[in-house]
């Protein structure tokens, strides 16, 4: 990327930041993260009291250590799933209006009059959105990890996997938000479609059970095909939780590349539509 393009890209990312800052939804996202962090701080105050009792003479047993580790893992899995489901939902909700707002008639024509390509305009908006959500995820997971680590001396890096996985799935859904925003210029639809994908992915993920129940061959094939097309929101979340909770490995590669392919196809569609549209 040339220096000029990089400057334009940075300006667009910075503009997305400013717009997000001006919206209450993004403050809500960070407030909820802060609330969750505050809850952990409070819960671990109670744990510290128990620790104080232990310091006063109660010996630390292997069973007690096991209990702490279990508590830490359960905490990690709950936070990671809360981040993955609710965090992604809230992030989609907060991002939904950012594309339609930039397409308002008196705003888009001015942006397009500048020496920039439409692709870079879309990319700047996408990256700005992603960066905001990344900061929120790092803030939440990082703080919880540090709080739990400091208080329990259990530093399990598996929990940090929640950041890239949640962010990756948000990026995939953000592609849908972008395409919906570019085609329909509707914030409501930009929320509804990604949420629908989240729900459909949970239904399609039951393919082992459903395929046995379906009577015709074509319906079974259709179900399996849809499973592979739609991003694996459910499976990826489940895999992340199992890995954090019980160290069970998942087929990350298949889950990631199929979801990424869906996101790339949708994002390419968004770029294509955006480049062809009249404003």
């Amino acid at each position, binding site marked *: 990327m040339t220096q000029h393009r990089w*400057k334009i890209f940075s300006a667009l990312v910075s503009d997305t930041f*400013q717009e997000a800052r001006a919206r209450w939804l993004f403050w809500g996202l960070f407030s909820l993260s802060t609330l969750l962090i505050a809850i952990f701080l409070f819960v671990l105050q109670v744990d510290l009291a128990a620790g104080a009792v232990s310091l006063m003479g109660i010996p630390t047993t292997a069973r007690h250590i096991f209990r702490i580790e279990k508590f830490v893992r359960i905490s990690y899995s709950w936070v990671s799933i809360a981040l993955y489901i609710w965090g992604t939902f809230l992030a989609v909700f907060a991002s939904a209006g950012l594309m339609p707002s930039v397409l308002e008639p008196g705003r888009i024509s001015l942006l397009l009059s500048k020496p920039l390509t439409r692709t870079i305009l879309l990319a700047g908006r996408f990256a700005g959105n992603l960066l905001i959500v990344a900061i929120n995820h790092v803030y939440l997971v990082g703080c919880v990890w540090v709080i739990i680590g400091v208080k329990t001396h259990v530093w399990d890096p598996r929990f940090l996997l929640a950041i890239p996985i949640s962010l990756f799935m948000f990026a995939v859904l953000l592609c849908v938000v972008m395409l919906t925003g570019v085609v329909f210029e509707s914030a409501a639809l930009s929320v509804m479609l990604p949420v629908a994908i989240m729900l459909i992915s949970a239904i399609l993920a039951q393919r082992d059970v459903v395929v046995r129940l379906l009577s015709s061959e074509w319906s079974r094939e259709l179900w399996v095909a849809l499973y592979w097309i739609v991003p694996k929101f459910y499976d990826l979340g489940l895999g992340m939780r199992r890995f954090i909770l019980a160290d069970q490995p998942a087929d990350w590669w298949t889950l990631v590349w199929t979801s990424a392919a869906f996101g790339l196809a949708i994002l390419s569609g968004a770029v294509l539509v955006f480049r062809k549209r009249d404003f």
Partner: protein
Amino acid sequence: MTPYAIETYRLEKVYRTRFRGREVRAVSDLSLRVPEGAKFGLLGANGAGKTTFVKMLLSAVHPTAGTAALFGRDARDPEARRPVGYLPENHRFPTYFTGCGMLQFYGALSGLDGPALKRRIPEMLELVGLADWGDTRIKKYSKGMLQRLGLAQALIHRPKLLILDEPTDGVDPAGRRHIRDVLNQLSGTGVTIFINSHLLGEVESFCEYVAILKKGELALQGKINDLITDRGYHVTAVRVSHAAIRALNGTVSPDGQTVVIQSPTLEEANHAIDAVRASGGMIESVSASAGSLEDLFIRVTKSERGTERAA
């Protein structure tokens, strides 16, 4: 290097409705040349295709046919828009910006770096009379202030071509004066100023060239002074001989009694009066006729056919 800031050849835009597929021809076969450094006004009734034409120049709208170039460069190339400053009609500047923030953002998109922005932002705010408002959020700005700030963002990167879409629309008289003063300051610097407006008086007082669009087609273009030909004097006379009428190129009224002679200068009017008297006719009235762009506009936009072009 082409001497034209804007050059279009048979430009056309047809909109198709999404579901019914109905066609609306917004701009048709439009070939236009705007010389570098000119002050050019684009006129037309509502829906004549003025804004679509401007948006095609800036690649916000894709032409169905034809070509458009800015300083000889294909208008679809983003680099062609680098020397262009644009103030859109009904702009919606993001309200989370302060005046300085907005200039910073649009200046950066126009290719200015940090030090240049630091220098240009106060200059621009000073130029448009908003020096004390730079740190105020623009949601507190009046319509006139927003328009001036919009003008500042269009000028921040020292464009060679300034495209203004209804620049004084909705602005109070003081604000209009301010915008006009800024444009007058610019007009001597070689900047091409292209104004898309329906305020004929402003275009007439500021622009040298004009084009009038009618139903998406170019109805007329040329130098304003060449186009407004009915400026001068009307001599109305009676009992004028047929020979004198023919010699003076007079127009006989429907009642067949009165003759109107149009003279572009005072000398020619006096000569016509002498000729009428010499032929035995009598002068009924003499009046100065101040032909205006408005008269021309009305005449062109109401005429059913014909494309007029100045020599």
